[in-house]
Structures are given as C-alpha cells and as structure tokens.
C-alpha cells in the first residue's frame, strides 16, 4: 500500500475523465516531440550533408533547388554545365577540392551518381568491403542501399531513368557492384556511385537507342525531359553540378561572385540556402509548437477539472482517511500524484506516438532523412514538463484536500 497505488486506484475508478486528460497531454506532447524530432533531425541531416561543402556550382536557376539537388539529393537538377567550364574553376588557387556530379538515373529510388574518387574525400567516406570501380558500369553503393536492398559485392543491378522509381529500365546495361561504403550518416549512405563515363556511356547508348525508337514510332516521349538532363553535346561532356571545398575562408567572399559574374554558371552556398530553407520551414514548425503548447495547456485544465470533481465527490472519503490516521500531507500527496500520474502517462504515450509517427514518415513517406530510433536531447524535457503540468493541475484540488476539515465534512 502506498500513495501511488491509492492514486492509481482512484484514477482507474474515474477512468473516463482521466483518459481525456491523458489523451490531451499525449496529443500535445506528441506534436511537441514530433516537431523536436523533425527539426533536430532535419537540421542535423542538413548539417551533416553540407559539413564539408562550401559551394555548389551548377546551371543557372534556383539556388535552393541546386543545393537540394546536389547536396541533399531530393530535388531535380537545374540543368547541366559543361565539364570543361567547371574544370576551369577547379584550377583556382582558392579551391581545395572539387567533386563533379552527374545524375539522371536511379536504382529503385536510390540515385545513381556519376562522380570520381574525390567524392569519398569530400564526405570522409571509406569503402567497407570490396574496392573502388575500375571499369565502366561498375558501382560502389552506400551503406543503406546495401542494407535495404540486401546487396553484396558482385551483384548486378539495373538502373532506371529519372530520379525516382520508374519502370523505364536500362535492362541491357546492368551495373556490377564492386564495393560497399561504410556507414557515413550522410546522404552518401543512400547513393549509388559510379564513374562519370559510365553515366555518359549509358546515355550515349540511350541516345542511339532512342533515335532508333523514334524512327519507328511517333509517340511523344514522357521521359525525354529527364533524358536530356545528361546530354552529350557537340561542345563536349556535361555534368550536373560541382561540389567545391575552399582552401581558406577568404574564398567565401570572392569565389561565388567570381563564378556568378564571369561564367554562365551559378554558385550557391549551402550555408545560406539551408538557413533560408529552415527559416521558411520555421514558420510552420513554430505554428505546430504553439499548437502543442495549447494542447498541453488544455490537458492541464482538463486534468484540473477532473481532479476538482473527484475531490468534491471524494471529500467525505478524504475525511474518513484522516480519521484512519492519514496526515494532511498524505492527502495532498495523493491528489498531486493523481495529477502527475495522468500527465506523465500522457506524456510518455505522446513520446511513443511521436516516434511511431516518425517511423511511418520514414517508412511510407520514403523520407530517408528521419529515423524513429534517434532521440533528441530536448526530449529529456518532456518528463519534467509532464511532471510540472500534472503538479500545477493538481495543486488547487490538493490544497483543498489538505485543508479538508474532518469534523465538519463528516457531520454533513
């Protein structure tokens, strides 16, 4: 027999109104926790992926789109740039590392990226097993790709056109896996890496293929737009973008301006663009946060009302308990425990719901940026917040219980 048991028994007796209080605090906490999880995981992901990248050079268009596409691999490319032009930039003394990217295909939703070995250096990635490719149509795959698709060295995979899952397969040109990367906790885990020339050859071939195709039929080609992302022009080879790491901070001021003013390409800074992205998302996150606060406040009020009612109907019982030797403090303790019990159960349920929601987001939203198993440090605040809400909600009924006059209540 202890306070917790007595409180538990009282709560289960009033299960309906207790349930409402717990439900409201669960919803409030779930939204609060979900916003925390999403914003912390997103910003962590954004930081992890752009950590070593100072600048992205690509075709003119939206700078945000260029960043999203080349660093986070989520949006479509802004266009192509000539490899020759891009290579000229890399000769600048301000550039420490330059990684070319060429994209346009995917393997079951994982993007196939044409690049070179400087990619590993930029992301601090290493090969866990196997080796780097040496021939065309050989690939090295990211950790998550290998895990999720159960792939191993020597397996052959077939790419498809476009940047998301499609049925337009390159069945006649399978890639062979020669290596698997170590887990990098960055977007590199979700990529299939191959040589630039593999991508070019694939599409060189495709071009022919398509021309033949076209002479036979006259149907419009839906995928044509995607095809043209990587095109062999008369001027030479093209890539989608180039990731650049500076040699020293002075480049921040000079280099982007130089690119934007003297070339046909655009330079976009990941730091500026992700800050812009976050400030846009921020309004939505703030609104959700206010909703969470409101729900938690309503939860506290509902717990207060249910405890106040319980106090009124239990006044006599409380007086009887006093005759049995209960001190004022015990009655106060029972009331407070009841309030805290409801909100803490609600809060813990809310944390569970939030993680369940991130599980569904990551599972069915095919969003690889959130993980249900990662906990945010700020989640540690949820328990004290739940405790405080319960305490505040129970305070008035608890004081009332503390003050209950025994004799007067019993003789009523």
């Amino acid at each position, binding site marked *: *027999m202890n306070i917790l048991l007595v409180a538990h028994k009282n709560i289960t007796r009033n299960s309906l109104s207790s349930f409402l209080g717990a439900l409201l605090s669960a919803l409030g906490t779930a939204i609060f926790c979900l916003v925390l999880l999403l914003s912390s995981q997103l910003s962590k992901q954004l930081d992890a992926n752009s950590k070593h990248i100072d600048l992205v050079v690509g075709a003119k268009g939206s700078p945000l789109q260029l960043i999203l596409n080349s660093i986070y691999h989520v949006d479509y490319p802004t266009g192509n740039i000539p490899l020759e032009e891009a290579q000229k930039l890399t000769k600048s003394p301000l550039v420490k590392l330059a990684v070319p990217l060429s994209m346009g295909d995917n393997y079951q939703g994982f993007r196939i990226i044409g690049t070179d070995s400087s990619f590993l250096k930029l992301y601090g990635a290493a090969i866990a097993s196997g080796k780097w490719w040496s021939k065309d149509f050989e690939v090295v795959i990211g950790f998550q790709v290998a895990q999720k698709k159960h792939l191993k060295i020597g397996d052959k995979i077939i790419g498809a056109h476009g940047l998301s899952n499609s049925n337009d397969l390159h069945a006649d040109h399978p890639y062979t896996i020669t290596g698997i990367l170590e887990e990098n906790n960055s977007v590199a885990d979700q990529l299939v890496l191959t040589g630039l020339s593999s991508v070019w050859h694939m599409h060189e071939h495709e071009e022919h293929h398509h021309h033949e195709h076209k002479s036979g039929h006259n149907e419009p080609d839906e995928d044509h737009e995607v095809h043209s992302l990587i095109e062999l022009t008369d001027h030479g080879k093209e890539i989608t973008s180039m990731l650049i790491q500076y040699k020293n901070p002075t480049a921040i001021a000079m280099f982007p301006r130089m690119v934007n003013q003297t070339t046909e390409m655009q330079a976009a800074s990941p730091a500026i663009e992700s800050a812009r992205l976050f400030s846009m998302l921020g309004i939505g996150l703030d609104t959700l946060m206010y909703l969470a606060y409101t729900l938690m406040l309503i939860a506290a009020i509902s717990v207060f009302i249910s405890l106040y009612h319980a106090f009124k109907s239990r006044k006599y019982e409380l007086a009887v*308990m006093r*005759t049995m030797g*209960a001190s004022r403090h015990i009655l106060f303790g029972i009331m407070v425990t009841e309030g805290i019990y409801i909100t803490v159960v609600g809060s813990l349920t809310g944390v569970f719901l939030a993680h369940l929601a991130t599980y569904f987001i990551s599972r069915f939203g095919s969003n690889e940026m959130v993980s249900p198993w990662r906990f945010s440090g700020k989640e540690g605040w949820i328990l004290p917040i739940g405790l405080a809400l319960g305490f505040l909600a129970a305070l008035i009924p608890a004081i009332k219980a503390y003050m209950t006059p025994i004799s007067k209540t019993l003789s009523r």
Partner: protein
Amino acid sequence: MAINHPQLEFKEITFRYRKDRMFSFPSLTLYEHEQCLILGDSGSGKTTLLHILTGLLRPFTGTVLLNGVDIYRLSPKKQDQFRGKHIGLVFQQSHLIKSLTVLENMKLARWLAGLPIDKGELLAVLQRLGIADKATCYPYQLSQGQAQRAAIGRALINKPMILVADEPTSALDDRHAAIVLELLLEQSKGFGATLIIATHDKRIKDRISHTYQL
C-alpha cells in the same frame, strides 16, 4: 486483571460553534473493557462529543486523555498517527474507500497508521467477521450488512484502544440492528477495545452497562 487504569478520561469539555451555541459535557472516565452508550436526541451534541473524543475536533476548553495521553497536546502529525493507531471509528453508513477492495481498505488502515501489513492476519480478521470471501470485492459489490462488517473490521484492524461508533444501527431494521450491535460488542471484546456508541436508538440501551445521557 491486575490494576485497572483509565482508558479514556475527559474533563470539563466545552465547545461552541458560534457564540450562541455552547455545549458543555459532563466529565467521564472509562476503564479497559468497559462499554459506554452516549444517548441523546439529534442536535444534542453527540457527534460533536465523539469528534472531540477521537481527536477530530479540538474542544474549546477541557482535556481528553486516552491511556494517559492528552491527545490535543500532540503535534498535528502525532495526532494523526495516534488516531490511526489507537482509535477505531464506525459510521452510520460504512464509509469504505470506494476505489479500493475490502482487503485493500484493511491494508490502507494499516498503512495510514504506519503499521506493518500482514495479509494472513488481515484475512483472519475478515474470516472472523464472516466476509473472507468478499476480500477482493469492491464496496459497491457488497450488501449493506457486509459493508458494515467490513467497516467494523477496518476500524478494529489496528487493535485500537477505543472503538467509537456513531449511530451504527439507526438506519437498520430490528434484526440487522441486533446483529450489528452483537458484532460490535463481540469484536470490541475480542480485540480488547473500549466500546463507545453514540446513538438515539433506544433498542440498544439494555445491552450496555454505562450510559451517558446528553
């Protein structure tokens, strides 16, 4: 019985609710194993006196000695503890805690008095009262008689010095009133408690030695 010393003693007790309503109660001394009936019409101050005797209501003047202890001189916390350990209360209607089972009500009484809980002992008490099979029932599942038995059990579970009953029979018919009275007499004797019954129920009169008329 070697030396019979007073179990309950009260002297010169007065109490007033408002200026115009003043009660003054004649002094009384009760020894171990004695029984006393407090008789009086409603409004005569029976409940007030009972509450004063059991440490629930501080009198305006006078002292209450229980086994030599002046209960209103104890600190509030000690008072609560003393009450839980040494005073058993039975009300007109059984006031069991509704959210707890019969057995849990017994456990609550032990716990609130700061006494150890021995489940076997508790079940034995329920056995003596003939409601052992109701141990896991909630109060709403009991008949009025069973609930009254459970309430008497709960009042006696800590082996109190005095067992105080406030109108325990007035809501009952003759047969049940007789049963409850028998139960109170028998159990208070069995547990060695001085029995005090406050009532206006004339049916009880003949069974109890002392009467205290208000």
